[in-house]
């Protein structure tokens, strides 16, 4: 009996299960850090990201990503995964693992576009990202495309998943414009506090939990001492980077604003997780802690930059956490990789390759989502009306109240 394949399969399915649960984490983070009048809408977007994504990735996306490479650019279409593949584990196991990853990329976007995007438009966007945008970039990196040929290292997807989500989020949030009331007449950024710190925090814990499937699961094997050691190391690097990200974000906000900021600290943990995702299998624990430290600092600065300087309204910090820290983390592989990293005497070669990968994917994602969002904007419209936004998307898009029994405050934008 072939037990090695069983061990590998169990491992990948364990990973897939945890990564699936990240959907709950995203849903809680995104609702917790936005206003109560839009929670139902955000839930629906997350649910549809995953549901539509699961169906379309199975129907088409998967083969575009992992089908036989056409010129290193795109996989050959094989609708409904009917062909035969050899991924070392049963194709179905590989498919489900890839499905939950694809859905993660899509879900990232909803956070940055929260509280003002038309639901139907969002569903279409979500459909397209799972259909082509994500799978094609994924093909380059993991599907045998030109970036993998080049030696680009993105072990579990700082770029393939998080940056893709983050760049699409950037384009979406930019084209949408800020929420009403987010910037004063003088252009000064105002605070629109999230409605539940507890749910937001629960979401972060769930995401961290899910990351123990995301990163170690990406090893795709667990049989044999080497794999056992690898997945164990990935647990340690993943965890240390997250911990360092949280601690440094706390310290930094404490110094800068006088008090340790709760939601930034939570973002710091996520930044560490996103950052270490590319290199979790090739860096040392110390390298991981440094990656977490760097991304934990970057995320705070980046959130401020987008908010105060670029005036791009990203309610949950998705652009910074996933886009920026995903890119930084991928670059840092070129610095901290035990083999080939700048700090370990590997010179600039790997770093250069990493930069190429980060760039190409950024250009691709920004370009395609720009076109997509612009077309959607001009045709069915991207944004709800001012009245709908003010009264809440739950009421207007879905006819419900998220918290029917609670007396809500109707004014939550603060000077």
């Amino acid at each position, binding site marked *: 009996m072939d037990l090695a394949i069983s061990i590998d399969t169990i491992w990948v399915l364990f990973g897939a299960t945890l990564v699936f649960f990240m959907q709950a984490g995203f849903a809680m983070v995104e609702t917790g850090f936005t206003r109560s009048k839009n929670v139902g809408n955000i839930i629906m977007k997350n649910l549809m990201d995953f549901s539509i994504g699961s169906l379309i990735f199975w129907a088409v996306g998967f083969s575009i990503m992992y089908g036989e490479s056409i010129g290193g650019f795109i996989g050959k279409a094989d609708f409904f995964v009917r062909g035969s593949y050899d991924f070392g584990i049963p194709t179905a196991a590989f498919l489900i693992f890839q499905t939950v990853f694809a859905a993660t990329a899509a879900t990232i976007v909803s956070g940055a576009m929260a509280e003002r995007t038309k639901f139907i438009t969002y569903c279409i966007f979500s459909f397209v990202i799972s259909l082509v945008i994500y799978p094609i970039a994924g093909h380059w990196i993991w599907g045998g495309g030109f970036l993998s040929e080049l030696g680009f290292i993105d072990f579990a997807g700082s770029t393939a998943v998080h940056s893709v989500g983050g760049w699409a989020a950037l384009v979406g949030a930019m084209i949408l414009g800020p929420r009403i*009331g987010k910037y004063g007449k003088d252009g000064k950024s105002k605070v629109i506090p999230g409605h539940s710190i507890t749910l937001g925090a629960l979401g972060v814990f769930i995401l961290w939990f899910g990351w123990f499937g995301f990163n170690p699961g990406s090893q795709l094997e667990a049989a044999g001492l080497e794999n056992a050691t690898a997945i164990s190391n990935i647990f340690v690097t993943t965890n240390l980077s997250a911990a360092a990200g949280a601690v440094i974000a706390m310290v930094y906000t404490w110094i800068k604003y006088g008090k340790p900021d709760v939601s930034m600290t939570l973002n710091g943990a996520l930044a560490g997780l996103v950052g270490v995702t590319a290199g979790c299998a090739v860096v040392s624990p110390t390298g991981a802690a440094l990656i977490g430290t760097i991304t934990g600092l970057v995320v705070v600065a980046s959130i401020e930059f987008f908010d105060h300087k670029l005036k791009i309204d990203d309610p949950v910090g998705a652009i910074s956490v996933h886009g920026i820290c995903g890119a930084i983390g991928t670059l840092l592989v070129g610095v901290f990789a035990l083999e080939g990293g700048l700090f370990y005497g590997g010179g600039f070669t790997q770093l250069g390759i990493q930069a190429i990968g980060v760039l190409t994917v950024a250009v691709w994602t920004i370009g395609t989502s720009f076109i997509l969002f612009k077309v959607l904007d001009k045709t069915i419209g991207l944004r709800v009306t001012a009245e709908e936004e*003010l*009264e809440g998307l739950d*009421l207007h898009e879905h*006819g*419900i109240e998220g918290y029917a029994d609670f*007396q*809500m*405050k*109707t*004014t939550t*934008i603060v*000077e």
Partner: protein
Amino acid sequence: MSEKISKIEIVIKGSKFEELKDALNEIGITGMTVTQVLGCGMQKGKTEFYRGTEYKIDLLPKVKVEVVVSSVPVDDVVRVAQEVVGTEVGSGKIFVYDVSEVIRLRTGERGSAALS
């Protein structure tokens, strides 16, 4: 207590509150008490579906702002409120009441002295 003291109760949409507060500040009103309320009136509610069952939302969330004033003429308050809230149905109402006494608890001051 020589001058007349009035309570002005303004019921408006929550989304207009920030602007109203700023406008009131500009005419010298800094004290106010704000309550979250539900209101119905001329403004029509909506008919929605929840789990397949139709329902009418006729109580809409509003904000009630209470301002007790003496020196500031009531009409000033009415004016700035009107400027802020707009002209759709449901914009809101103002109710004015006589106040027979005001006391600032920490000092014991009474009347308009308690308001300034």
